[in-house]
């Protein structure tokens, strides 16, 4: 079972390769979109790399539940409603959504996910 640091190192390598950023930019608190410049297509690339690095399968929508954020059931006036927040929390137990909850505008979500969230997600998959 890999340690948290071992997971972080591999996640960092995946992000350096996928996003073309420097190693020292990939800190645990760095946000995927705001700090590291990830675009939507990069997330699929990251999924490929994490699957390979850790020998795991990442079902579509598990790491980035875009279906929740685009659902008319959960989104009104560009904001996620209470049911949507509950759905997001249930789908992303690995993510720290406290900041997002304060202002759940869909456009804010892009700046919610951090490198540490990626690490926690992988931990949940490999049992580290």
């Amino acid at each position, binding site marked *: 079972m890999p340690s948290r640091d071992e997971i972080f190192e591999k996640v960092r390598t995946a992000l350096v390769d996928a996003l073309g950023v420097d190693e020292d930019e990939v800190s645990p608190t760095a946000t995927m979109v705001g700090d590291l410049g990830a675009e939507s*297509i990069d997330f*699929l690339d990251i999924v490929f790399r994490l699957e390979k690095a850790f020998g795991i399968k990442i079902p*579509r929508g598990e790491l980035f539940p875009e279906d929740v954020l685009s659902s008319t059931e959960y989104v009104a006036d560009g904001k996620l409603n209470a049911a949507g927040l509950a759905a997001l929390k249930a789908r992303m137990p690995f993510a720290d959504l406290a900041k997002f909850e304060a202002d759940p505008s869909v456009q804010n979500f892009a700046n919610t996910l951090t490198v540490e969230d990626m690490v926690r997600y992988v931990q949940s998959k490999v049992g580290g």
Partner: protein
Amino acid sequence: MRWFWIDRFEEFVRGKHATAVKNVSLAEEHMHDHFPGVALMPNSLIVEGMAQAAGLLVAEAIDYNRRVVLAKVAGAEFHFDAVPGDTLKFRAEILDLKPAGSLTRVKTTVGDEVQGEAEIFFAHLEPGDGVPKLFEPEELLRWLDQMHIYDVGRDEAGQPLTRPDW
């Protein structure tokens, strides 16, 4: 300028790998315009050839039912210039393929020397609103024929590929 950067396939195994060739010629316009006085094939166009070789391999693997669009090029490295008279070989392999996208690796060689390498990442777009049609079916089929895909192509079981009935 016609946007064909591979001449034909020599080997094509569905969903796995393929080898395409391009004969670099002084007759090509870009040889004279890109670096006047220095005839070489720009590596940016070799990347396009890589994307065409790998993109057709991916498109065939998903039965051409989504638009295969070049999304990212990662880790591209080139070791020397391809010049008129060279035969460039593009060896493409699919590393991973999902409904929404695919990751491929392409290596180019001249003779026994590795000329370039890159990882090419494609997005697969569902036809529909906001997704432009890339090819008319007959135009695509003509290109596939010119590429000799159905002459050399094999499926997973080693049987000849069936030409689509469009």
